[in-house]
C-alpha cells in the first residue's frame, strides 16, 4: 500500500506576517509511489470564534447559541492541476498575498491579530488539500500562521501612580465580618498603561510600611472578553498569567521592579469590534502571611507599536 503525506512549510520561521505581505512557502508531498490526483489546492482561512460563557447565559444557550464563526479571510489557489506526482519528495512552492477581503460586509473588522483567548479566538490557517479519485480519501495538511499589525508609531507614555493603604481599599467581598485589616502603606507605579506588545511591562512597587509579614507580591495579567450577539452579551475576565515579583517579606522602603514580558498569542492589541471586545487589565496583588489579599486593578491598553 502506498503511503502519501503532505506538509506545509513556511519560509519564515516565526510564521508571523503583516497585512500586505506575501506568505511564501512550499507544500511538500512525500509519497512512496506515483500518485494520481484530481488537483492540489491551497486554502488560506482566517476566522474569529466566539463562545458565550455559561456564567452570563444559561448552559443551554451556551451550547445552542454558540455564535457562528466570523470569517475574516478565505482565499483558495490551485497548486497543481490534476495529474500525477512522482515517487519521492515533491516540493511545490507557493506565494499568497495576505490581504483583507475586498467586498466588505457590514461589521467586517478587517484582518485582526491572531489571538488565543477563552471566549474569543482569532486564528489563521493554511490548508493544503489533494483531491483524489472518489475511491481514495483526499490528503490534507494544515498549518497555522500568525497575523500581526504593522507596528505603529509609539504612543505617548501614560504612567500611573497609586498608593495602597487600608483607606484606599474598597470594601470588597461584602458580607461577613472580616479580620481587622493590617496596617500597610504601599506605593506602586506603572511606567505606562499604554503598552507596546513586544516590550515588557514595567514599573515599581515599594512597601513603605506593613505591620504583618508579606508572603508574596504578584502581578496578574487579565483579559476581559466581551461577546455580543442578538441575544445579549457576555463579559468575562480571566487570568492570562500571574507573575510573582516579590517573594517573602521584602525589604521595606525599597523599590522593587515590576517586570512582565507579555506572552505571545495570548495577548493582542486591545480590540473593539461590533461583535466582540478584547481588553486587558493588570492586577497588583499583595498577599500577606495570613492569606489576606489586597489587589489593585489597572486597565491597560495594549498596542502594536515600536
Amino acid at each position, binding site marked *: 500500500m502506498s503511503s502519501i503525506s503532505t506538509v506545509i512549510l513556511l519560509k519564515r520561521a516565526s510564521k508571523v506576517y503583516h497585512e500586505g505581505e506575501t506568505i511564501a512557502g512550499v507544500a511538500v508531498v512525500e509519497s512512496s509511489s506515483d500518485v494520481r490526483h484530481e488537483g492540489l489546492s491551497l486554502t488560506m482561512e482566517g476566522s474569529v470564534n466566539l463562545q458565550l460563557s455559561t456564567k452570563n447565559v444559561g448552559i443551554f444557550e451556551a451550547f445552542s447559541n454558540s455564535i457562528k464563526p466570523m470569517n475574516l479571510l478565505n482565499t483558495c489557489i490551485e497548486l497543481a492541476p490534476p495529474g500525477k506526482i512522482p515517487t519521492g519528495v515533491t516540493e511545490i512552492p507557493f506565494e499568497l498575498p495576505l490581504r483583507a477581503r475586498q467586498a466588505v460586509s457590514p461589521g467586517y473588522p478587517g484582518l485582526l491579530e491572531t489571538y488565543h483567548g477563552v471566549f474569543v479566538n482569532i486564528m489563521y490557517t493554511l490548508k493544503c488539500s489533494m483531491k483524489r479519485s472518489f475511491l481514495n480519501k483526499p490528503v490534507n495538511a494544515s498549518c497555522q500562521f500568525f497575523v500581526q499589525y504593522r507596528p505603529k508609531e509609539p504612543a505617548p507614555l501614560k504612567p500611573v501612580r497609586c498608593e495602597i493603604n487600608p483607606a484606599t481599599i474598597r470594601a470588597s467581598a461584602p458580607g461577613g465580618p472580616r479580620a481587622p485589616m493590617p496596617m500597610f502603606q504601599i506605593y506602586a507605579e506603572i511606567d505606562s498603561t499604554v503598552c507596546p506588545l513586544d516590550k515588557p511591562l514595567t514599573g515599581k512597587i515599594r512597601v513603605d510600611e506593613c505591620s504583618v509579614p508579606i508572603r508574596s507580591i504578584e502581578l496578574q495579567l487579565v483579559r476581559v472578553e466581551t461577546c455580543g450577539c442578538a441575544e445579549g452579551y457576555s463579559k468575562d475576565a480571566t487570568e492570562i*498569567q500571574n507573575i510573582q*515579583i*516579590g517573594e*517573602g517579606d521584602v525589604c521595606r522602603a525599597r523599590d*522593587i521592579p515590576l517586570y512582565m*514580558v507579555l506572552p505571545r498569542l495570548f495577548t493582542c492589541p486591545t480590540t473593539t469590534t461590533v461583535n466582540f471586545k478584547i481588553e486587558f487589565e493588570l492586577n497588583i496583588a499583595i498577599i500577606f502571611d495570613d492569606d489576606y489579599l489586597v489587589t489593585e486593578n489597572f486597565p491597560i491598553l495594549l498596542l502594536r507599536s515600536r
Partner: protein
Amino acid sequence: MPVYYEWTSAKKSNRIKHDSPRFEVTSYPLKINVITIKESSSSSIIDHINKWSSGFEEVDPLLRFERMSLEEDMNPLEVEKIEGVNYSKAWSTKRAGILSKYTTGEKLTIVSSYLPGGEKTLIRQVSNLNEKVKHRLEQLDDFDEGSVRKTMGLTQQEFVTKINLLNDEIKKAWETEQRVKAFKIGIQCSKLLSDISVMQFYPSKFILITDTLDTFGNLVFNRLKEKSFGSNTLVNVHNIDPRTVPESAKETCQNWMYKMASIRELLPRLYMEMALLKCYVFISKDEIKPAVARITTMIRGIGNPLVAAYLRVYLCHNASKLLGKDSETYFYANLKEFLEEYQQIFLTAMRKKYETQLLTQDKYLNLYVPAVDWLLFGTLNSSKCKSDLLDEFIQKCEQIENNELFLCCIVSAFDSPTVIKKAPKILEMVLSYADKMVMINEVLASLGEHLCKADNHRQVASESLIQTWWKIASSLKSTNHFLQVLEPWLQFACTHLSTQHVNVILRGMIRYMIKCGKPADEFSGNFQFVIKRMLKSIPDVEELFLMDAFMPLVELVQTSSARTMMSKTVLSIFFSRYNSVHIEDHIVISSLMRLCCILHDSINAVTVEDESKICGELINKFIQAVTYQDDLERQLNFYVECRSSFIKLDAVLITLVHAVNTLAARASPARGKWLQRACAAYCFVTVPSLHCTLTKTQLYLLSGQVALLNNCIGQAESNFKALIGLIPDIPDYILEDGQKKSTHVKVAGILSDFLSTLLLLPDNVDSNCKAYILSGFIKTMERIHWKKTEPLYYNTLVRTLDLLCEMTQDNYMHHLESVLSNDELYGCDSEFIDVLNRYATNICQELLVVLKMLGDNKETKKQYHLSLELFWRVVRRGELTERPMMSLAGNLWMLSQKTQDSNNKLGKAILTALQKEANPNIRILLQKLEEGVKNS
C-alpha cells in the same frame, strides 16, 4: 687418607714488613672522615618522621575526584583569556571551599516530580483558586505522572545523590527530545533554593543546584549553537555574532526566553534567566548587560536575605563568565544592593528561623560569608584604588548597625598592605563595638593574618596595636575564639616585638586559660595550633625556653595524651628550626628534658611501634644535641639521668651507649681512669636491658673495644664474655621494617671484628686456662647449634684459625699503645703456643668434617671454596716442614681439584701466587702437587 693432622703454625719472624713504601703521617690514613652535617632544611626532620606515615598519604579518593573534576572544568572552550582575573578558576576554588565547609547532619527535604519514591503531596501554591477547584486539581494531579513528590528525612549524602539524579534526568530528558521536561526539572531544582529549613547546608545546596542549572543552560546553549553553526567547535559565547545566527535559531531562543519569562514564581524565574543568560548572545549582544542590571534590581523582590545573597552570587558568577572584566561593575552593584538590604539579615523573623534550627548567630552569619566574599572579590578587582574603597567601606561599617558580617568580609577580602594601613582604625572600631559584636574572633583573626604579612617594622605601630588587641582579646568570652584570635597575633608579636612582650602575652594567655574555668584540654587542638604557630614564627627558637611563661603554658594541658601531643609538637618544631648542632644552655636543656620525659612517659604497652619510633627519634635528637663542653663528668651524669628517664625506649638506650662510648673515647687518661671506667661500667650495665640480641652483641663489642682502647682490660673482658654468652641466642632472622631479614651477614661481620679485637686483648693471667676469652669462644662454637654446612659456621672457624696462627707470632701485626698484648705478655711461651696449636688442630679437624659433610650434601661449590681456603691457610700459616701439614695441604689440593667448578679461578690464582714464592717448602709442595695431579 689420614684422618688426623696435627697443626703447627709457622713462625714467621722473617716475614716482617713487606717492602711497601712507608712514611710517617699525622693522622691514621684509614680513619673515617667524620663530617658533621647539620640538617639545614627545616622540614627535614618532619619529613623524616613523616616517612613512616607516607604510606597512608595517598590522595584520598574523594579528593582525587575533586581534582579530576577541576581538571575537567578546564576544558579548552571555557578557558578564556580574560584580562585580569580568571573568574572561572576563582569560582571553582570557591565552589570546592563551600562544599567542604558547609555540611550538615540534619535531615533534608527534596521536592520534585521527577524523582522516584517519596510521598505524594501537592505543594500548596500561593494562588487565588478557591478550595473546591484546588481540591479537584489535586485529585487530577494524583493521576498525573508528574505529580509533585516530597521526600523527607534525607541525609546530606542522599540529598546530593538526588540532586545528581536530577542532573542526569535533565540530560536524559534533553536527549530524548523532552526539552520542556528538562526545563521543568530546572525550575523545580531552583525552587529548592527557596527552602531554608536547613540553613547550615544552604551554601552547599546552592552550589549543587546551580551546577544543575548550569547543565541546563549549557544544554540550551549548545543546541542553539548547533542550530546556528553546526558542529563548529571554534564558536563560543564570546565570538558569536548575532547577525550570523539564522532566524530559526533566533526564534527558538526567543521561545525559551518567553517560556522562562512566564514562570510564575520569582525565584525560579530569576535562576532560570541567569542560567539562560548566555543565550541572549543569539538574539543580541546588547541585551546581556541590561538584563544583568535588571536582574540585579529584581532580586530586591526576594525577601529572604540568605536566598537573595546567593542569588546575587549566581548572577555575578554568570556575568563574570560572559562579560569577564566588564562584569566587575555588576559585582559592585550587587554588593551595594546587598548592603542596602543588610538589615534584613538581622530581622527578628530570620532570628527566629535560625534559632529554631539551633544555630548560633555567628554560625548564621557565617553562612553569608562566601556570598559576600564573592561579591567583594569582583568588586576589588575592578577598583583601581583599593585603599579608597576600603575607606569607603569602613565608613559604611561605622554607619550601619550590626556591622560585624561586613567588617569581617572586608577585612578578609582586601589585600594585606591595604588592610595593614588601616589596621589601627579597624581595631579601634572593633574595640568600640566589642561587647556586642558576634564575629569579633573572625575579624581579629583575619586582621592578625594580614599583620603577620607586614614585613616592614616601621610600617606599623606594633606595640599600640598589640595593646589595643589585648584589651579586646582578653575580654573575649569564648576560649576557642580567644585561641583562634591569639594564633595570628602571637605570630605578629613574635616577629615584631621583643621577647619580653611575647612573654607578657604568654603570661596573659595562662591567666586567661586559668580564669576561663575549664581545663585547657578541651581546647588542646586550638592550643596546639597556637603553640605551633609561635614555634614556627619566633625568630630564635631557643629564646622561647628562656621565657618564664613558656613551659608552664606547654604544661597547661593536663591529660597525658594532650601533653604528649604538645611535647611532640614542640620538640619536632624545635629541632626542625634549631640551627646549631649543640645545645648548651642549661635552661633549654632542662626544659627539653622535661618535654622528652613527658613524651617517654606516654609510652606504654599499647603504644604502636611507629609512635615509639617517632618518640625515640626525637629524644635521640635531644641527647645528641646536648653538650656540656669540657665538663665530661656532667655529661656522663646527664647520660645517667637520661638512662633512668628513658628506660622504655631501646632506640634511646642505643644512642646513649654510643654517646657514652664517644665520651669515653674523648676522655683523656690525664683526667684519671675513673671516668673511663665509669663509662665502661655504664655501657656494660645498659646493654643488657635492650631487647634485640644482635644489637646487644654489637654494643658489647663496641663497648669492649672502647674499654680496651682505654686500657680497662677487666671491663673489656667482661664485655667480651657477655658477647660470647650471647652468640648462641642470636636468632637466624630478625624483623626489620616488617620484613624478615637474615642476620648471618651481620653476625659474620661482628664475629670477625671480634676475633681481630681478641688479638689485642691481653690474656687473663689469673685464670688457669691460656687464651681465656678465645677458648671460651671456641667452646661456644663447639656447642653452638648452627648448621655445619652453613658458610657462617665454617667461615668463622677459618677466621678463628687465622687468629690462632696470628697469635703464635713473636710480634703481632698491630698493637694498642697502652695495652700489653699477648706477644709481649707471654713472649712465645711454648705452653701458650701448644695450647693454641691444639685449638688449631681441633678446628682444622672440624673443618675437615665440614668438608666431608659438604661432599655428602653435594654442595660442591662450597666444598671447593672451603678446601681452597683451608689449603691457603695451611700453605701460608702452617709449618710445611711438618709432615702432617704437608700431607694435609696435598690432600686439600687434591680435593679441590676433584671438586673444582668450571673455571677453577681461585685454584689457578693460588697456584700462580705460590709459583712466585722462593720458599723451599713451597717448592717441595708444588712438586708434590704436580705429581699428585699426574697420578690422578
